[in-house]
């Protein structure tokens, strides 16, 4: 199947109009010495055969496990209405709304998404999306460097190691000094951050809840950062902002985050959604597309891509970022999801996650071989210290039908017995009890 509609006759008519006799002549600029040395691609198959093949491959993936893994990427329920709307080709087969009059639907949707992100984060403005939580954090760091004209970044090690590693990759050829400060009793070490804060610091980066699931109130850290003229960047988990103190309330300058929790399927790592919001003063330094409201010739409200002079297609090598394609369809998912939840629903959902997680924490804390880290409050994820190697325990739990959590030894030295466990609204009391029971057997076996 090729999806090419041309009949032989039409092809001939078109060739005649061009004034040539074969399609081959159209490629005459590609001389024989530039032709492919090989092009060994299998013969095309029918749609039916390919779907059968894909069903077979899908069956080799274990999605039957009861999931307690989070680590920044969560198993939340997605209402059917989200998928129904996202499945409309008028959304998913459109492209970037450069032509505003014929893209009002998309532009208004993005404006509404930006509004939702501002409401959740308590910040003034949001962009139309970046690729994911990690690239968003990198863009925020670069933005802070542009705003302050400084090049030192203090980063709390409670920031996801995945994101920290991404930041180091992206900046390895740039002259940026990174200081990593430790997490003490689950929280950002004030002493260490303050020790390094100075007039050269562009930004302090924290994450809330941090990678270990712990919640903090960073207001004091942020105030201190501001006193040195540095910006405060916070990586967030948007769903938790149904209840948690917002970046805005803490004084954060730029909030970023992974938006997957807002109605986006896990899909083995993507596509996801990079969220970015900031204070009013910095909007002209923000990367990515931004939609704004304006009026047409008759004074009617309409929406356009705005502040485009920041972007690569206008500013080229002086752009605030190289980003072009973003994650618009995922942003739309997020916007539909939070619209369905609404003002009350997001609070209730946040509380439900918190309740289930607290319940799990309590019963897991009672089984032998487990110590629950309780030095900080948590949202829907927490750290356990096991009496055995967490990797091995998780492996055994897989055989019992559980994805038991993320073993921290892979990312943190000396934490081989630590297990990070996430409990979302999808986990039932029965599943949690069965999980505790199974874990106990393995730990005491």
């Amino acid at each position, binding site marked *: 199947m090729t999806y090419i509609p041309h009949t032989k006759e039409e092809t001939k008519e078109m060739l005649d109009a061009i004034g040539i006799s074969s399609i081959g002549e159209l490629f005459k600029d590609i001389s024989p010495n530039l032709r492919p040395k090989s092009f060994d691609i299998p013969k095309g198959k029918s749609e039916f055969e390919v779907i059968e093949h894909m069903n077979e*491959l899908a069956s080799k993936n274990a999605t039957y496990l009861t999931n307690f893994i989070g680590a920044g990427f969560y198993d939340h329920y997605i209402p059917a209405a989200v998928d129904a709307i996202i499945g409309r080709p008028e959304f998913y087969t459109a492209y970037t709304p450069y032509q505003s009059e014929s893209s009002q639907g998309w532009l208004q949707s993005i404006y509404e998404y930006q509004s939702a992100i501002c409401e959740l984060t308590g910040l003034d403005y949001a962009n139309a999306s970046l690729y994911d939580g990690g690239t968003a954090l990198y863009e925020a760091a670069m933005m802070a460097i542009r705003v302050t004209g400084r090049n030192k970044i203090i980063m709390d090690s409670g920031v996801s190691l995945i994101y920290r590693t991404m930041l180091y990759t992206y900046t390895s050829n740039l002259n940026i000094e990174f200081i990593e400060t430790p997490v003490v009793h689950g929280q950002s070490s004030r002493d260490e951050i303050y020790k390094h804060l100075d007039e050269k610091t562009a930004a302090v980066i924290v994450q809330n809840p941090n990678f270990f699931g712990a919640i903090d109130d960073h207001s004091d850290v942020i105030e201190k950062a501001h006193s040195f003229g540095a910006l405060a960047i916070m990586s967030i988990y948007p769903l938790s902002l149904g209840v948690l103190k917002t970046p805005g309330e803490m004084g954060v300058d730029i909030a970023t985050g992974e938006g997957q929790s807002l109605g986006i399927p896990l899909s083995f790592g993507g596509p996801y959604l990079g969220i970015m919001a900031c204070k009013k003063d910095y909007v002209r330094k923000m990367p990515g597309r931004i939609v704004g409201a304006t009026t047409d010739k008759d004074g009617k409200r309409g929406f356009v891509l705005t502040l485009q002079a920041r972007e690569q297609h206008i500013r080229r090598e002086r752009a605030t970022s190289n980003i072009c394609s973003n994650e618009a369809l995922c942003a739309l998912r997020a916007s539909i999801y939070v619209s369905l939840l609404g003002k009350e629903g997001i609070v209730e959902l946040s509380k439900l996650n918190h309740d289930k997680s607290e319940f799990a924490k309590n019963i897991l804390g009672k089984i032998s071989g487990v110590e629950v880290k309780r030095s900080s409050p948590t949202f829907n994820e927490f750290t356990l210290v096991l009496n055995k190697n967490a990797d091995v325990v998780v492996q055994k739990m897989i055989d019992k039908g559980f994805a038991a959590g993320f073993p921290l030894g892979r990312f943190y030295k000396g934490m081989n017995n630590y297990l990070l466990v996430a409990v979302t609204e999808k986990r039932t009391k029965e599943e949690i009890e069965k999980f505790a029971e199974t874990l106990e057997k393995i730990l005491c076996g």
Partner: protein
Amino acid sequence: MRLIYEKSVKGRRGFKLPQSDVAKQQEMPAQYSRKCKANLPEVSELDVVRHFTNLSRMNFSVDSNFYPLGSCTMKYNPKFTEKVVNIAGFLELHPLIPQLLGGGRLTQGALEIIYNTEKLLCEITGMEAFTMQPLAGAHGELTGVMLIAAYHKSKGARRKHIIVPDSSHGTNPASAAIAGYDVIVVKTDKDGCMDIKEFKQKLNEDTAAVMLTCPNTLGLFNSKIKEITDLAHDVGALVYYDGANLNAIMGKCRPGDIGFDVVHLNLHKTFATPHGGGGPGAGPVGVSKSVVEFLPVSRVMKRPGGALYLNYNNKESIGYIAPFYGNFAVILKAYVYMLVLGKEGLIRASEYAVLNANYILSRLKDYYKPAFNKGCMHECVFSASRQLKNGIHALDIAKYLIDKGVHPPTIYFPLIVKEAMMIEPTETESKETIDGFIEIMIEAAKLAESDPKKLTTAPQTMPVKRLDETKAARDLNLRWKSV
């Protein structure tokens, strides 16, 4: 249309949460809690469905309109690919599963898709290896430039600049600059290709790479391309291939065979994954042998017994550029598209994409000034300069097309063509559709002479007329706020 926020009614609900089956736990301490609720809309499920359904109807899309947007390859997105990504075995798979001890065997199907897609792209482009991780075309460019930097670093050289032609996509110089390179621009010659003489003058031992699109953004294949890659290699520079225009040359030539060292592809262009209103895309990067060792981790590798695994163990790697393995659902769609098209289908896609573009070029050249007086590849570029004498700009023609139900071509790009209109019809559009488009373009050219006001006041049929962009940038209104 009113915002969803403006439709909010206190107390209305759009989604019922599951009843909690656990006892109520202690509340979040006040110090860590938000003071006021986020002002999200209070609407019913039907409110939400109707709101977004009506918004969707205010968009042009490939499924509803011809969309000849140059450089974007807005081809038809086959429907079965949507079905495939929604199979639970893919949709619900947590990306950290294969990183657990003993977890690799639980994701063999997903890893096989990534592995096989890499192999297919290697064969299509003639590259040695691919990483599927970059999350968009520009993200692929940045990855590619970082690979180039790592390559030179391994040779003990920093190298200072990257050369781009003045016809390049804006992302090329932007990617080079944010990766820490100076950008040197070479102008386009009278034949529409990078000026070789100027290129030679600017190329030196400080050149890290030259970034090229081939065919270029003028829709032209540079017949001197091999000379350029050879010249770059002679001074130790690498050559980067911007794959935005790969749809023109599948089975006709391969960047790897011509001497390109690093390429990125846009799966959402050539491989028919939907553009999603601006994303998600995917921008996998392929490399020649000398660059393989620097690819980002993880890489999907095969054990002697055939089992696939994620290899994180590579000291030379540039590191992590994405949280996981790329935009998996997008990769999956591109993979099944390639399986259905097969060898002949891919070759035919390029052939008919080029045929359609040349047909438009030959039928419109009497009405609009072609940017260059020769045949094109998969897209053709015109200038509205003939219409300018009547006060008509490319923008006016674009807006007239909207009234006629056609998405406008890319306008004002490439920057080097005055009043540019860049038309890329793609292979999936029929002669009938293209003839319809040609008629509208001819009509617009005639109106420019006889009744230019028809063009300057377009569009008239859309939900809004031309919008005040200056006002949007001056009086920022970027969000709804409760009153």
